[in-house]
């Protein structure tokens, strides 16, 4: 249970909100690089943290993320002409550069300098690891560029996708740290999905559906350890990383690529689910990339020409009751991503947390909320930067390890939980 005022603190992220201020401390994934593939390509509408923006790549390849609407009469610059170093409004020809500075007002004498008085709000947009990142906070607080491992490995070792999720970001993110649902909702996929199957560790998951959890605060967020019985009295540990505000990295299986997410608010009722897969020391195989493009693992198939999943609430997520009855899927929805999203969207745009009945195994969720609320308050009251901004907090890895029963994972797997260049993830 969470009080409504605390839920509001975290779920509302528009301008002027406390939760919005928290998100505006971080570099956020805004677009895939492939959405702006070349200089002077069509601009792309972007809504983030309840702000309508427009992204474009100008004639020299420079990236801009500016207010979507022309300062003159308020038309959408999505209709604009991206040409000769700026974006020109097709209505009366006002032109803006990538910083939002108006550089031409054709109806006014050039000598008047009127255009210098017009500037749209803009945010920095930088390319790293196939993603265009933005920072929407105050310029004097802009942190160093993000240093997530998946974004720093060579491009052939990494794959990123995104999908619209029609729910508030928090209930989506909470699904990512709710390790106990895996044994039910996703049980059909461990042995069938090409990005999971074949790992020895899958047998531990399938044999022991009642893991025991340990939740430990980390510098940037949380370690969430799920422990299952292994051979000879040892434990099989799966350690998930959560880094504030909304990054998760799921423990690896065998030599499969490692995956994780960001959940980024579009507005209070919708979010982007970003899903990455990468391998720290080898290129992804053509088969792996094909599976990811085909919506396997944590990725989805799309409605053509969009980032909306093909299975969505308008078609009841293509639910297959026969598959559910036969046990091929637990919920009747196919694919890990949409199994999660369908249930999280069914909660309504923002779930009423005053009515929930959490149990002890939900401590990961409870602790994440606790840290988020604490960080929002420290930011509001003391202007204290939240965890996760520091690049050191981003140098993390998830891990899957077998340990003797008397060894705590935070100590025994300490090295496995941070980036070690040139090594694989610790995996079973």
């Amino acid at each position, binding site marked *: 249970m969470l009080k409504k005022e605390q839920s509001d603190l975290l779920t509302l992220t528009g301008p002027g909100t406390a939760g919005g201020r928290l998100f505006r401390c971080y570099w956020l994934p805004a677009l895939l690089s492939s959405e702006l593939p070349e200089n002077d390509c069509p601009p792309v509408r972007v809504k983030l943290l309840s702000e309508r923006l427009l992204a474009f790549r100008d004639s020299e390849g420079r990236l801009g993320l500016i207010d979507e609407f022309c300062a003159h009469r308020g038309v959408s610059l999505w209709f604009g002409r991206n040409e000769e170093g700026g974006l020109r409004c097709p209505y009366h020809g006002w032109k803006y550069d990538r910083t939002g500075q108006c550089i031409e007002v054709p109806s006014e004498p050039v000598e008047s300098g009127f255009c210098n008085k017009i500037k749209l709000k803009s945010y920095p947009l930088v390319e790293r690891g196939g993603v265009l990142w933005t920072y929407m906070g105050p310029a004097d607080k802009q942190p160093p560029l993000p240093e997530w491992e998946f974004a720093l490995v060579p491009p052939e070792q990494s794959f990123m996708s995104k999908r619209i999720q029609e729910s508030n970001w928090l209930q989506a993110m909470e699904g990512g740290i709710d390790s106990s649902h895996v044994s039910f909702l996703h049980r059909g996929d461990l042995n069938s999905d090409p990005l999971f199957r074949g790992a020895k560790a899958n047998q531990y998951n399938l044999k022991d559906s009642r893991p025991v959890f*340990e939740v430990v605060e980390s510098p940037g967020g949380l370690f969430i350890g799920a422990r299952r019985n292994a051979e000879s009295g040892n434990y099989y540990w799966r350690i998930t990383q959560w880094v504030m505000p909304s990054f998760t990295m799921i423990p690896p299986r065998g030599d499969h690529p490692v995956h994780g997410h960001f959940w980024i608010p579009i507005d209070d009722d919708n979010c982007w689910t970003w899903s990455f897969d990468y391998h720290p020391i080898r290129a992804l195989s053509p088969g792996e990339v094909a599976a990811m493009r085909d919506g396997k693992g944590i990725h989805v198939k799309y409605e053509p020409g969009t980032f909306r999943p093909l299975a969505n*609430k308008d078609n009841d997520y293509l639910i297959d009751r026969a598959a559910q009855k036969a046990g091929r899927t637990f919920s009747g929805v196919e694919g890990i991503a949409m199994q999660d999203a369908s249930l999280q969207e*069914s909660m309504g745009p923002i779930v009423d947390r005053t*009515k929930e009945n959490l149990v002890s195994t939900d401590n990961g969720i409870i602790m994440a909320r606790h840290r988020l609320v604490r960080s929002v308050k420290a930011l509001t009251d003391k202007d204290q930067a939240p965890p996760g901004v520091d690049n050191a907090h981003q140098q993390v890895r998830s891990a899957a390890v077998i340990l003797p029963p008397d060894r705590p994972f935070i100590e025994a797997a300490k090295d496995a939980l941070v980036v070690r260049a040139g090594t694989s993830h610790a995996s079973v």
Partner: protein
Amino acid sequence: MQSESARAASAAEARFRIDAPNSQPRSIKVIALDRPSEAIVKRLATSVWGNTSFLTTLASAPPRDAPFSMRGWLADLAGHTKILVDEIEHADLVVMIATAGESIESTSIIGEACSLKRVMTTGLVVTAPSVPAAELSRSLAQLRPWALMLVVASAEDYIADMLMALRA
């Protein structure tokens, strides 16, 4: 036409969710396993809680040479001895609070009793950056066999948030 899922997931439809209690009060026992934790539990107990009792193991642990008994391991915060099995028999959850580095010898007896009575257990270790990792590990090792959920928190305010989240 809108699909059933699309209509049902809308904010407009959320207005028609049944507004009635969907659970009964839980019985939660919060037990301090060491002296610093006892102080934490005493502070927690000053807030208003539902069906939650705050207990300690300190004052009432039987002498080492006494015959084994599940009696007399617990006391309430006023120092009155409580019978362990009676206390946990009808509990929905037992939360054991420990402070990293402190001796928590009574963990096993409480854990054993919870195991016997099939009561869910959560172990919560409060630690500070200054506590050596080995001491934290020792506390965790003592709790691990008996806690179905184990949490390491850097500050005691988490306990109140956790109890509230669990509708204590």
